[in-house]
């Protein structure tokens, strides 16, 4: 990869009040140009009100091969969900 035009991951907030969501990636010489390119590539139809760009090399990801063990601690804890608890039907507003 050309080190002068690295890859950037693009995140777009589609509407005020919503999270930024990953939409894709692009190449640019710096962050400012990455934002300008993202405007042209990912918001041609008013898809966004805010853009984040992060240089791809700065994203650290979990290893999919370790997914089983990584998420294992949560697997047997259904008591973290409200439906786990046995309560009478006449109980309201809870």
């Amino acid at each position, binding site marked *: 990869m050309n080190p002068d035009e690295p890859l950037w991951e693009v995140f777009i907030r589609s509407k005020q009040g919503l999270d930024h969501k990953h939409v894709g990636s692009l*190449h640019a*010489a710096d962050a400012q140009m990455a934002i300008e390119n993202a405007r042209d590539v990912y918001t041609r139809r008013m898809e966004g009100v805010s853009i984040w760009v992060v240089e791809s090399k700065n994203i650290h990801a979990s290893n999919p091969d370790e997914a089983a063990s990584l998420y294992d601690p949560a697997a047997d804890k259904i008591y973290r969900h409200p439906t786990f608890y046995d309560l009478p039907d006449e109980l309201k507003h809870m």
Partner: protein
Amino acid sequence: MATEVFQKIFDDKVSREIKIEPKDWMPGDYRKTLIRQISQHAHSEIVGMLPEGNWITRAPSLRRKATLLAKVQDEAGHGLYLYSAAETMGITREEMVDQLLTGKAKYSSIFNYPTLTWADIGAIGWLVDGAAIMNQVPLCRASYGPYARAMIRICKEESFHQRQGFEILLTLCRGSKEQKEMAQDALNRWWWPSLMMFGPNDDASPHTEQSIRWKIKRFTNDELRQKFVDICKEQAEILGLTIPDPDLKWNEETNHYDFGEINWDEFWNVVKGNGPCNKERLNARVTAHKNGEWVREASIAHARKRKKTLTAQKN
């Protein structure tokens, strides 16, 4: 873990319609097939701008010019989505651009035909984008996540492309006798190359079976081509145009239109580089890349300068 275990996990995911993501293990041939398919698809979007670009300055009205410009801009965007998707598989942008410019990579042969009249812009939107959409909609469910996501975005944007083309032809068909003839002439020239866009017949397409097993493809070339013919026949009637195929007729038994044999010699000849515009298209890309060199250099120089200024301000 042994390869067999990884292969089993991969097969299991594919069969349960769980998307394969960039960091997941995948068979080497799956990666190779997708890199080839996605990059060819990206190249097609980029080269696909050329036949239409030919008419931007000569569009008959400001409305037509604005919509054609928007369509061509979308195609540049679609090329970029697809290049990024291919990059997640480990090939670099430079390698792909290089493969295109040296003629090593293929792109859709349809773009090696010339756009002789304004009606061709209508025919391209209706038929070429129509055939592309037919191919692309099932790709939104492709097993490789980044490709499927790019295709969803592309399909959403592409439906206006086809509609603008049909509107151009409809206007010509409702115009003067000469205008209608121009539309018919465009259909005559673009019909068969559009059918060729679906690729060789199933019995001559050795990779289809594997691609379907990997859930990259969902339908065979012939299945998609048949769907396209069925739809276009009825749309041509709305235009009042005649599809240039004497063998095109309804078949009560199959519930589809039968159609004539495609000229596969012409198809392979264009694929091999001998179409009417192969050289012109490639030259245009090479020249554009060369002429853009200073822009790339300037952007890098600008980034360096801006970084220096920012650092100086901090200190």
